[in-house]
């Protein structure tokens, strides 16, 4: 890599997904994050009941994220060859888990409203 700048990274991600899809996904992630912040601010409290469901969904998100990446890249778990591979795999799993948890928590909050 000659110049690994933010604009290079953005250009690369635009090319991977297509400009429209990439920014749509960024916008979607932003909207979900903002919705999450919105319900936190609105409710002024974390609902432990919803958080339990969010936590339970985390392994599902982790497995889905890893599975998606492996399928999309013709890879298998046996291809892990070094520490960096395991780190990347774990980061993908953690990303999937956290994303799923936020999605589930926010979804419950928006659909069911506040816990009274």
């Amino acid at each position, binding site marked *: 890599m000659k*110049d*690994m700048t933010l604009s290079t990274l953005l*250009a690369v991600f635009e090319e991977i997904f297509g400009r429209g899809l990439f920014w749509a996904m960024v916008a979607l992630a932003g909207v979900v994050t903002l919705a999450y912040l919105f319900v936190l601010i609105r409710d*002024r409290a974390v609902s432990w009941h919803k958080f339990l469901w969010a936590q339970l969904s985390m392994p599902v998100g982790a497995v889905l994220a890893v599975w998606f990446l492996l399928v999309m890249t013709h*890879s298998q778990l046996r291809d892990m060859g070094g520490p960096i591979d395991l780190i990347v795999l774990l980061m993908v799993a953690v990303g999937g888990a956290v994303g799923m948890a936020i999605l589930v928590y926010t979804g419950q909050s928006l659909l069911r409203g506040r816990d009274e």
Partner: protein
Amino acid sequence: MTKNKYDLSRRAFLGVAAGGAAIASVTPSDAAPIATNAKIVIIGAGAGGTALANRLVDRLDGAQITLIDPRPQHLYQPGLTLVAAGLKPADYVTTLTTDWLPSGVTLIPEKAAAIDPEAKTVSTEGGETLSYDYLVVAPGLVLDHDAIDGFDLDMVGTNGIGALYAGPQYAAKTWDAAGKFTEDGGVGLFTRPETEMKCAGAPLKHTFLIDDLARRADNRGNMDITYAAPQGSLFGVPIVAEKVRMLFGDRGINTAMQHTLKAIEPGQQKATFVDQDGSTVDMDYDYIHVIPPQRAPDVIRESGLSWADKWTDQGWVECDMYTLQHLRYDTIWALGDVAGVPKGKTAASVKWQVPVVEDGIVSAIEGTDPTETYNGYTSCPMITRIGRAMLVEFDYNNDLTPSFPGIIAPLEELWISWLMKEVALKATYNAMLRGRA
């Protein structure tokens, strides 16, 4: 109370949203374009020509930029090894040349027929003559299939013959033949030419991939694989050659070094090599991968731009290995495969060469000294099986130049290196074409 709370939360919400939008809209600011009426001609609208045109359009205001290239398709050549292993369809590598060119440049869809470096003109096959102030020669190279006796491109995909360099449809046909080999077994011969060549890792990648695919088909025990090359080592960079030697040992791949493919007899499935003693060696095959000698296009060799004392059978452009400027004509630069430099016939090299040529031309227009140089950087994501690769990067000195030292080891078979080849490489390449990487 409730109303107040909602007002506050809405304000906070909108504030965060506005902040996010502001971050998203930040773009790097570029220096003001330089006003000029220079006439710049680029022969070739491949990776180098296209990326350079996009960058020059941003740097120069008023320059007359003309590209000359007869091929309507743009080929993403790093993808050909994946097509030839059945991992991607042929159209994975094909787009339109015009998809990538910026507005404000002219594309002449013809072949360059002659260059007169004294009169500073380029003539096209259609009879048009263009004068230039600055010329960039980036026409790529020519695959000399006729140099292999008995071989014809029409044979690719039949009788166990593959030739993935020849283009997307031939890479797909190569998989027809190679895929059959992985099912039927037999003797596989994987060759490389004696000349300089584009992506010297590709012959090795094809060998590794077919070996892996045969293992996945549970058929590797029924085949004998030999890698036959005119050179004395498996890779130009000694430390990488040693690693490949070890991997070949691990995979049970035989080698026939200093063996140059000269002819094939498709009917009898027999290949003829010449060894280091000049003796003829015949080998039978069930699958053979043919990579012919590679040379500069005739227009370069006939225009007196080639080296007179180096690569005389190949005709690469005589240029400074660091600035890529022609050694006898200071208004001409070489870019990409055609450049007569010791390394650098890859897309990754082009990525590093383009800013050097851009800097050379812009500096010449401004009357200043150029500062960018090319150090021979070449990158090869050496696929060693589906799902693993080694991210090998090196320079003119054969020094390894890892982009992520301490994180991605260059001589380890890693999944992340495969991910880069599979996911990020084409995207980075496309960003480069647009002049953005």
